[in-house]
C-alpha cells in the first residue's frame, strides 16, 4: 500500500513533468536551431526542406540550444571516457569546485556555530550583531567575489582559499540564523528543569540546547551547502577561466561552446543534488541516533 502510494504521489507526477520538459526541450531545440540551418542552406544556395533540417538541428556543432542527447554524450565523453587527471575531464573540474565548496562550507559552519553560541549567551552580542547578520543577507555579497579573488591574488594567496572564503561568507549566514533559532528552541519549562538540577551553563548547553538545535542546524546546513557551491562557482568566474565548473562556464561562453556550458551546468546541478542529499542522510542518521522519531 505504502509503495503504490509513493509511486502514485511522487514518481508518477514528477516523471510525467520531467517527460513533458524533455519534449518541450526537443521542440525548442528544433525551433531555435532551424534559423542557423536555413542560413547555411541559403548561403550555399540550395533549397532545404523541413524534413531535411530536422535531423540536422539535433547534431549541430554550436547549437543555440543543444539537444539533451548531445549534452548527455558530452558529459559521458568528459567523465567516463576521459582520464580524471586530464584538464578536459569534467570530473577534474568538478573536483576543483567541490574542494573549494567543502572547505568554505566547513569554515562557514564552524564560524557560524561559534557566532550563534556567542549570540545566544551574550545579550549585547545579540542586540548589536543580529541586525547586521540579517541585514548582510540582503546585501549582494556575491558582488564582492571578484574583488576577494583578485585582491588575494595580488597578495600572493591564490588557488583554493579565496574561492573557499566566498563560500564561507555565503554559507555562514544561514547557519548563524538557523543555529540561533535552534539554540533558543528549548522552552522555558525545560530550562527551568535544568535549573532545578543545578546544571551549569555548559551542562545546559551540551545536554539541552545543543541536542535540541540539531534539526535547525541540519535544515540550515542544506541551504548552506547549496549556496556555498554557488559561491565557489561564482568565485571561479574572475580567475581567468583556469579550472573548475565556473571556469568551464566562462570558457564556454567566450568560445560559444554551448554544449560545454550545458554539460557544466548539469554537472553542477548533479553536484548540488548529491551534496544536499548527503546532508539529508546525515540529518536522518543523527536524528535517529538521538532517538527522535523522524
Amino acid at each position: 500500500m505504502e509503495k503504490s502510494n509513493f509511486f502514485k504521489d511522487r514518481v508518477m507526477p514528477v516523471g510525467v513533468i520531467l517527460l513533458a520538459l524533455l519534449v518541450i526541450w526537443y521542440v525548442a531545440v528544433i525551433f531555435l536551431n532551424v534559423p542557423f540551418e536555413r542560413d547555411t542552406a541559403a548561403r550555399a544556395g540550395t533549397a532545404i526542406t523541413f524534413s531535411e533540417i530536422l535531423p540536422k538541428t539535433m547534431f549541430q556543432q554550436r547549437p543555440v540550444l543543444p539537444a539533451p542527447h548531445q549534452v548527455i554524450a558530452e558529459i559521458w565523453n568528459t567523465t567516463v571516457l576521459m582520464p580524471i587527471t586530464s584538464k578536459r575531464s569534467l570530473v577534474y573540474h568538478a573536483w576543483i569546485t567541490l574542494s573549494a565548496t567543502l572547505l568554505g562550507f566547513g569554515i562557514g559552519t564552524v564560524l557560524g556555530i561559534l557566532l550563534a553560541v556567542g549570540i545566544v549567551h551574550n545579550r549585547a552580542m545579540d542586540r548589536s550583531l543580529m541586525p547586521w547578520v540579517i541585514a548582510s543577507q540582503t546585501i549582494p555579497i556575491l558582488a564582492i567575489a571578484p574583488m576577494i579573488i583578485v585582491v588575494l591574488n595580488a597578495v600572493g594567496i591564490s588557488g583554493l582559499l579565496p574561492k573557499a572564503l566566498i563560500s564561507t561568507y555565503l554559507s555562514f549566514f544561514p547557519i548563524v540564523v538557523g543555529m540561533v533559532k535552534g539554540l533558543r528552541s528549548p522552552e522555558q519549562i525545560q530550562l527551568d528543569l535544568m535549573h532545578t538540577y543545578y546544571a551549569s551553563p555548559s551542562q545546559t548547553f551540551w545536554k539541552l540546547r545543543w541536542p535540541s538545535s540539531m534539526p535547525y542546524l541540519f535544515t540550515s546546513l542544506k541551504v548552506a551547502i547549496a549556496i556555498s557551491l554557488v559561491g565557489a562557482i561564482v568565485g571561479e568566474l574572475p580567475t581567468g577561466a583556469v579550472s573548475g565548473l565556473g571556469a568551464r562556464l566562462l570558457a564556454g561562453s567566450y568560445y560559444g561552446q554551448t554544449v560545454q556550458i550545458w554539460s557544466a551546468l548539469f554537472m553542477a546541478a548533479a553536484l548540488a543534488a548529491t551534496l544536499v542529499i548527503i546532508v539529508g542522510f546525515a540529518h536522518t542518521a543523527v536524528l535517529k541516533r538521538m532517538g527522535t522519531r523522524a
Partner: protein
Amino acid sequence: MRRLTSLQTFLVLITGLQFFTFYPLLATPYLSGPRWGAFLMLPLIIYCLAFSLRRKRKKPIPALEWAALAYLIAFVPITLSSLNGFGSEAPPTNYWTTVIACIATAWLLNELLSSSNYRNAWVARLAFYAAPLIFGLSVLYLWEVLTRGLHIPFVLLPPPSMIWTRLIHSLPTLWADFQQTFLKAVITGYALGCGLGFLVAIAIDRSPFLQKGLLPLGNFVSALPVIGVAPIMVMWFGFDWQSKVAVVVIMTFFPMLVNTVSGLAATSSMEKDLMRTYAATWFQTLVKLRLPAAWPFIFNALKINSTLALIGAIVAEFFGTPIVGMGFRISTEVGRMNVDMVWAEIAVAAVAGSAFYGIVALIERAVTFWHPSVRNARTV
C-alpha cells in the same frame, strides 16, 4: 548604582588604565588639523567633575552610559584626526592603547544598553536601535584606524573615508550603473519572475497532479546553482539588460512558485468547509480565504527573491554587458586596481539591496498585520 558584570568591570578597567597614557596624543605632531579636538574633551571632564562631587552632595551618580558616550565623543575624533599627523611613520604605542580603549568603551556601552531595562519606553526604544548602530560604527572606526594606522596597501583594503570620497565624486557613473542594473534588470526581472511564479501557482491550483509533480522539482531547482544559466541567457538575449532580466526571471520563478503553492495549501479544511457552507465559488474562496492565508508564504518568497534578483543581475553582468552596470563596473575596476571604486559600487549595491528588502518587509507588515510574527515584533 547597579552591579556590573565581570566583563563590564574588565572593560571599564581597560578604559581607565588607558587614561594614563593618552596625554602625548594631544601634542602637536599628532593632533594636527583643527584645534577643536580639545573641546571634545569637555563632556568627559564635566562627567568626571560630577562624579567627584557626587559624595559631597549625596546626589545619585550619573549613569555610566553617559560616561561611556562622553568618552567616545572625546576620543574617537581625536584618534581619527591624529591619523593625518602620523604621515608615513607608525603610530606610537599610546595611540593603539587609546584605540583599544575606544573599542572597549563602545563594547561597554553596548553591554550596558542591552543589559538594563529602561522604564521610559522611548529610552528603551532608543537603546534598542542604538546597539546595532554603535556596533556598525565601531566596525567602521576600526577599519579606518587599522588600514591607515598600519599603512595597509590601498589595493588590499581602502579605508572607509577614501571609499566615501570616491562615492561622492563619481555619483553620475554610479547612478548610470544603478539605472542599468537595478531599475532596468532587477525590477523588471523581479516583477516578471514573481508574477509568473504566482500565476503558474494559481493555474496549477486545481490540479493536484501538477502540484505533486512541480513541487519536488521546484524545491530541487531552488537548491541548484541556477546562476549558471547566466552565460546561456547572455548568448540568447544579447549583452544588454534583457539577458539579465531573463536570468533574474529564472532565479526568482521557482521560489515564488513553491512558496505560493504551499501557501495556498495552508488553509485548514475547517475554514474551507466554512466557505462551502457559504456556497462560495472557487474564486471567492481564493480571494477571501486562501490568498490572505497564503500572504506570509508569498512574502517569504518575495523577500528571498529580492536578494536573489540583485545577485543574479550582477553576476550575469560578469558574462558580458554593455559598458555600464554594477557587475560590469566591479569586474573592470578590479582589473584596473581601482579598489575604492569597487567598494563604492558594493556600497551602492548593499544600500540598494537592503532598501529593496526593507520595502518588501514593510509592505509585508502592512499586509499580514494579523500574523503572529508581526504582532509579536510590535509588542517588543
